[in-house]
């Protein structure tokens, strides 16, 4: 069986130069040409199977959200290939993408910014249904919308309210309902719970898992919180500065973490059980800028185990055990 989503060597760049003149910089008494390009994603490959939850974790600026948005082609990829259900969608135009848009839906991080404040909740769901011709008539669509809202915990009498009349957790439920409205099979969730309080976060995570069972969804789940990721994922990848440094099943990454960055990330998590963080060793320094990526392994500037070779050569991904990939010279 083919994978639902296969991404190979995905690249994404953002050009910060608005025009030719902005590339010119005055330096040491001379005018030189300097391009400022954010290398957000640098050769990322992964696949998501049917009914699988694949998560990408990493700190802010590592490119995880960019991967999510590029995969559904909200941003055109600058390199690499995206295959969805066996078909290459990398080069598809906007109209050619439309049938795929119905099959892949997105849930966004900020439940305040991602709902149209001037649309009633029911209309937020009805509009995509009519657009994708899921419903035969507006009445039919409305009926379906109420059903879906009820499924995510919004009562029918609340459906004619506006988004601002709901709390953050309820809005996120509406965001989920909107994604469900067009009966997708693949859901990209970009930090869907990070803006919510813990008690609400748990409710939403349970809802996402229940829906997965009910509708056999596949998820691409983006998060920075490792404990959330551990709870929800089958497989995951750890990203740092636009690269996947480690990738494998949940058991691989949490049972046998190998990459020094993964290890550092684990030791930095505060835990309810104790005082490991205060005594444990931690990473020094900060994440380098994605405009001037360090040469060689992008993590060598902070890595406690860096070798001379790490400063020069980009490490290749290696399969350490079946299905467990690490990009690090220590394992070469």
């Amino acid at each position, binding site marked *: 069986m083919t994978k639902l989503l296969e991404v190979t060597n995905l690249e994404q760049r953002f050009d910060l130069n608005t025009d030719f003149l902005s590339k010119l910089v005055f330096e040491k008494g001379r005018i030189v040409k300097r391009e400022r390009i954010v290398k957000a994603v640098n050769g990322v490959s992964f696949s998501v199977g049917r009914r699988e939850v694949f998560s990408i974790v990493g700190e802010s600026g590592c490119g995880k959200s960019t991967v999510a948005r590029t995969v559904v082609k909200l941003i055109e990829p600058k390199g690499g290939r995206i295959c969805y259900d066996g078909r290459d969608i990398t080069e598809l135009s906007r109209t050619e993408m439309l049938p795929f848009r119905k099959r892949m839906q997105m849930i966004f991080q900020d439940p305040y910014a991602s709902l149209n404040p001037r649309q009633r909740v029911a209309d937020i769901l009805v509009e995509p249904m009519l657009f994708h011709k899921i419903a035969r008539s507006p009445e039919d669509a409305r009926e379906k919308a109420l059903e879906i809202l009820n499924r995510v915990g919004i009562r029918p009498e609340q459906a004619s309210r506006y988004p601002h009349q709901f709390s953050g957790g309820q809005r996120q439920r509406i965001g989920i309902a909107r994604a469900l409205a067009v009966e997708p099979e693949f859901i990209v969730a970009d930090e869907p719970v990070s803006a919510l309080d813990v008690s609400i976060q748990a409710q939403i995570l*349970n809802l996402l898992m229940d829906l997965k069972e009910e509708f056999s969804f596949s998820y691409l789940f983006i998060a920075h919180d490792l404990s959330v990721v551990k709870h929800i994922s089958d497989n995951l990848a750890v990203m740092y500065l636009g690269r996947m440094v480690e990738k494998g099943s949940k058991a691989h990454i949490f049972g046998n973490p190998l990459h020094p960055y993964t290890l550092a990330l684990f030791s930095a998590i*505060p835990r309810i059980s104790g005082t490991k963080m205060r005594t444990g060793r931690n990473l020094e320094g900060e994440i380098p800028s994605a405009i001037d990526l360090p040469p060689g392994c992008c993590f060598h500037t902070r890595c406690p185990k860096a070798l001379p070779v790490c400063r020069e050569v980009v490490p290749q991904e290696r399969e350490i055990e079946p299905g467990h990939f690490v990009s690090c010279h220590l394992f070469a």
Partner: protein
Amino acid sequence: MNDTLLEVKNLRTYFHTFKGTVKAVDDVSFSVGRGEILAIVGESGGGKSVTGFSVIRLIEEPGVIESGEILFEGRDVMKLSEREVDRLRGKEISMIFQDPMTSLNPVYTIGRQIEESLLLHTKLNREERRAACIDLLRSVGISNPESRLKAYPHQFSGGMRQRVVIAIALAADPKLIIADEPTTALDVTIQAQILRLMADLVRAKNRSMILVTHDLAVVSEMADRINVMYCGKIVETGSARKVIDESAHPYTKGLIDSIPDLERDRKRLNTIKGIVPNMFELPEGCNFAPRCARATELCFGVEPEQREIGAGHFVACHFPLGGPAHEEEARS
């Protein structure tokens, strides 16, 4: 802890809006000992930040501190004039705010902003102030402090800015630091650096800290004692390990159970049903009763008083969890 630095008695901070009165802090009493880290935890809207702000009377219209005593080293802050409170702020009690992006002034250099506190609260001359600024920056782990003095906030990353904010808070060597979600805006590896730094600085000088946060895991790593707040009231207070390992209030237990655990796998997260009640229409009796699985008729009618269930462990609940076990402990 008999050496008390701060004692807050029956604090009430209300917000009078055109929609009605919000009792953001309602009859809250607690104390902070010297050298102690007290955490105030709860979800958004619980009144934890307002409690922190009330201690240095940083409450703006329409908020009013209705009543209560705030005894700092025996002096009642409530009875001081605005000028006298100004002398207290920054010198004796200082604040670290959540958002390092907005709590620094973008048009002044870092050096000038640190110096301001020294200028106001110490008698150092210009050279001494400069030397003190450099020492402060070094103590919060900023390399090359001499050259950084002339930098502006936008030239710093989020983690670095929060270090600068901490340096400013420490400048006049205050006895109490109130930190309002100091690491919420930061990545987990940076969060670990900042938390460790704050704990070390507090411990090294036997200073005290009130740590306001929503993150129970951070709290269990950092705090000596914990106040759990819900809807403006302290529902449980006690030593950190007691509150977390032997939580007596169903809300505390609910919060802990809704956090996905890295150390063990669970199919579903336990959740607290429902949402935080509207602060304009708080329920009769116990505020938590509508969301509580153990609530009885009594809970919906009578507000529970705080009572001691173990040494220094207080809970405001008619039916605290693990009742008999606690009673046994109290006897032995």
